[in-house]
């Protein structure tokens, strides 16, 4: 099945963001990470488990009338570090955004360890997770040094 066929499973959007190459089965988590839920008013299309030359199978999300910012890209990087993000304006790709996790994720997500000093919400220093590896994703808290529970991270987004 071709790439174009995948994209046509849902209609082309006029303005907004297309997130392609999400690991198969992770689209729901991406939506959660981006804070897109039933309270969102913008139209969202999602396809899951479609064929991909590069990945075998993948998920795709299209969010209309909303352009992701750098902060949201950092969040996305935690779930789908290899995703491709395109900003669409007037039906064409206006901008391709690169997801880069860098060496550290700062103030995006809280440490998942329950006894970390940063669990006190009144402590003012930034939440900092060090990126040890991206494949597989391995994060450690700058303060307590604990490896991060990736399943629990999504609930700890700031």
């Amino acid at each position, binding site marked *: 099945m071709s790439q174009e066929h995948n994209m046509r499973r849902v209609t082309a959007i006029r303005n907004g963001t297309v997130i392609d190459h999400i690991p198969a089965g992770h689209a729901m988590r991406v939506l959660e990470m981006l804070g897109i839920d039933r309270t969102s008013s913008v139209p969202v299309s999602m396809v899951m488990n479609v064929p991909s030359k590069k990945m075998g199978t993948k998920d795709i999300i299209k969010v209309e009338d909303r352009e992701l910012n750098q902060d949201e890209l950092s969040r996305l990087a935690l779930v789908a570090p290899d995703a491709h993000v395109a900003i669409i304006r007037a039906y064409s790709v206006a901008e391709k955004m690169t997801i880069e996790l860098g060496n550290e994720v700062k103030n995006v997500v809280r440490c998942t*360890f329950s006894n970390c*000093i940063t669990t*006190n919400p009144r402590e003012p*220093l930034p939440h900092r997770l060090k990126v040890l590896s991206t494949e597989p994703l391995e994060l450690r*808290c700058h*303060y*307590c040094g604990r490896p991060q529970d990736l399943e629990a991270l999504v609930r700890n987004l700031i």
Partner: protein
Amino acid sequence: MPGLITMDDLTNDEILQVLNDAERLLPVARGELYLPLLQGKILGNLFFEPSTRTRMSFETAMKRLGGDVVNLGDVNTSSVVKGETLFDTVQMVDGYTDIIAMRHPRQGAAQYAQDAARVPILNGGDGAGHHPTQTMLDLFTIRQAHGRLEGLNVVLAGDLRYGRTVHSLSHALTRFGCTLTFASPELLKMPAEIVSDLRAHGANVVETDDLLGSLPGADVVYMTRIQKERFADEDEYAKVAGAYKLHASNLEHVKEGMIIMHPLPRVDEIHPSVDDTRHARYFEQAFNGVVARMALLCRLLNVDVPANIGGEA
């Protein structure tokens, strides 16, 4: 100014340098000689958790070197009870002192304090995290007995899951090529992420529940306390803890120079009959906390320990 948060803050050469400094400071630690290297300097003791040895030995170390100490006092009566953040407490003490020694129940607190402070922080224990000044005094004790740190067989026994002293020590011993045997009940095993970290750094690690069987090959046996409250019921505790007790009668087939260490306080994991054997080192170990901390205080305050102390060659 950088402090000492984990053992990763010191290279192997720096560790040996601190141990050499500590060695020279022994007569000062014993009170045989007064050497006011830290006169005019103030240590802030920030202990958010109970501590006897760590806190007292920091205080003794500072005073033996002519320095002064201010204490946070009881956390139940200080501003902490009013809800002050660690950040604010550290900001305040940072202004009063030249260096801070800290213990806190939350893991990561020492690194957090270091990020908040200008003065160096000495981590005296953060949750189940690190306790590097304890590690330095442990290394000092081991080197004092064996003349080296490299290539020793070290058995760590008891509560390896929650015991922060054994976590820091295992990492340090791995860097010196020691073989580590972790003897513990299943429930209190060394955390898997620490074992995999150690192995990734080339450690030769053996995990067992047989302490007595591990004794004959050991150069060092490092005992820790198994706490009752870690177990669901008292019977289970009694059954498990019994296998991690040492009695003088267990020491017939051990190496001549093997030493037994313990971070103290002990409950009944080392029987008093062991105290009189040539293997017991835990009280010297506690005393070594003073010299090790003296050397660390000097290092972090950028004060050189003289090559000759008291006219010794």
